[in-house]
């Protein structure tokens, strides 16, 4: 089985570092981006199997990033998990319009995040463009 690639986008360095470490320790290849625009470019260039993004980011918010990825047929199949400190509730429209499948509230448990990642990858395998 090939190693899955996960793109993590967050402007909080510490969060980015801890999520990356947790995922790397679990055997994933991790790419990191510190704002929405950088994440968009990396997703288009690297076609990751999953995107974990913060809600509030400079340049492009998490929602905008997911919508842009969803609009592009090349990246529309990338499933997304959103981390948020805003207490935002996931609506069915978010999944439909942005491809966001799960929402985790900050503060979150890295353990729970890993479980969610495995579930999403199992239930929604990356559809190749």
């Amino acid at each position, binding site marked *: 089985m090939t190693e899955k690639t996960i793109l993590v986008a967050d402007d*909080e360095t*510490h969060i980015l570092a801890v999520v990356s*470490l947790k995922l790397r320790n679990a055997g994933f290849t991790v790419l990191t981006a510190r704002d929405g625009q950088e994440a968009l470019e990396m997703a288009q260039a690297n076609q990751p199997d999953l995107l974990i993004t913060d809600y*509030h980011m400079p*340049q492009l918010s998490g929602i905008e990033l997911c919508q842009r990825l969803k609009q592009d047929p090349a990246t529309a199949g990338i499933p997304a998990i959103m981390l948020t400190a805003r207490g935002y509730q996931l609506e069915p429209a978010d999944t439909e319009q942005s491809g966001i499948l799960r929402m985790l509230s900050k503060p979150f*448990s890295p353990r729970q995040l890993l479980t969610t990642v495995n579930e999403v990858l199992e239930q929604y395998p990356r559809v190749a463009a």
Partner: protein
Amino acid sequence: MRRGPVLLFICLLMLCGGIAALYTAPQIPIRGLQDVQLDRLICGSCFALAALTGMMGIVSFRVAAFKLARRVTALSVTDRKTLLDANHPDLAPLAFAINDLTEQARQFVERAKLRVKELEIQLKVATAERQHAESIIYSISDAVLVTDPFDELVLANESAARTFDFDVATASRKPVNQVLRDPKMIELIQEMRQSNSRSGRRIVEHQVRTPQGGRTFKVTLSCVSDGAAATATALPGAVPQPVLPTGVVAVLHDMTKEKEVAEMKNDFVSSVSHELRTPLASIKAYVEMLIDGEATDDKTQAEFYEVIQNEANRLSRLIDNILNISRIESGLTKVNKQPLSLMVIIKEALEVISPQAANKNITLKEALTPVFYQTLADRDMLYQAVLNLFSNAVKYTPEGGSITAETRVDEAKKIVITRISDTGVGIPPKDLPFVFDKFYRCEANNRMAKGTGLGLSLVKQIIEVVHKGRIFVESSVGKGSTFGFELKLAE
């Protein structure tokens, strides 16, 4: 002596004498007058006398009746003392009857006068009450509109006129749809009148485009019904009468500001929760990683401990700042103002900040006024404000830059001006108006340094709310920023 019966008696006596003379007296001729006989003469005389007394009685009665009529005409119902004198025995009952009638009329007029006075008093009270109610309605800040059953404007206050842009003086008794240019408001009034609701009130939120701009109102509508009919029906044993509505009262309470405050509170709570969750998220994640043994080597573990400590400190600073701002805003902070020199405070803050500046190889420069220029200020708060400005300057100045602290006294305005300038990244013009807002962070410089978005807000509160001074900022992207404040010199 009564003349009427006497004359009647004489008249009857003469008639009887005449008749007796006619039948009993001998037919004796009178000497010298051959054709005239004595009996006929006596009889004729008696009849003539009877006729004369009868005539006298009639004339006397007529004169008395005429005099009575004149007195009746001259009678005044207002004159309590005058009583009618019959002046003729036969007219006395009539005079009594007229006197009685006149007395009754007098009493009736007296009662009517009393009633008129009562009504005048009631009218005065009602007028005063109406003026009182109107002055209350005119003085309240809420807009009030009162309409009648025909949807005509009966009453409107100044506030209503301002809200709906019409002239109070000319709007009275005009149909509401001619006075108001707000179809929704007209519809609300008409609907309320048609609903004929006697007890219910309707409260709706309504946006009005006033001359001052769009505003949100809480409109309370209620029907005004006929108060007299309602009271009568309410009395025990009264026959229920249909109570017709006489109009509608609409009271509009401007809740624009309240909504803004509520939104600000929501935003504040949302921002606070976001800012608290962010460091807490790091702490929780790193602690869990340590517990799960994900940090395998000592170096990583040490890094994790440091992150936890830094994030805990960040959380603590954030809570301190929130509490400080909140205390200043609510006026709960104890302010201990005393004459002090800004130069001394700035020097203390420079000493504290110098290790951080040295780490980034930033040069600290100063151009301060002599120590004898003093300002009346709370030492701890002013120190906090100056330190926050220095801390920001160090954060947003790249390595090798410089920071200059300068104070200048304006003797004419009796103020001391403090300027803290850096050669940092600067703030884009679009962000400048908002840099003192709570939780506002300049997106372009977000990566340059961590911050709570509360430091500058706290400085503004300390300078402007606590010390009644003025804060200002000047900036040029790529060249640097100057934050400064003006405080009054101590007398």
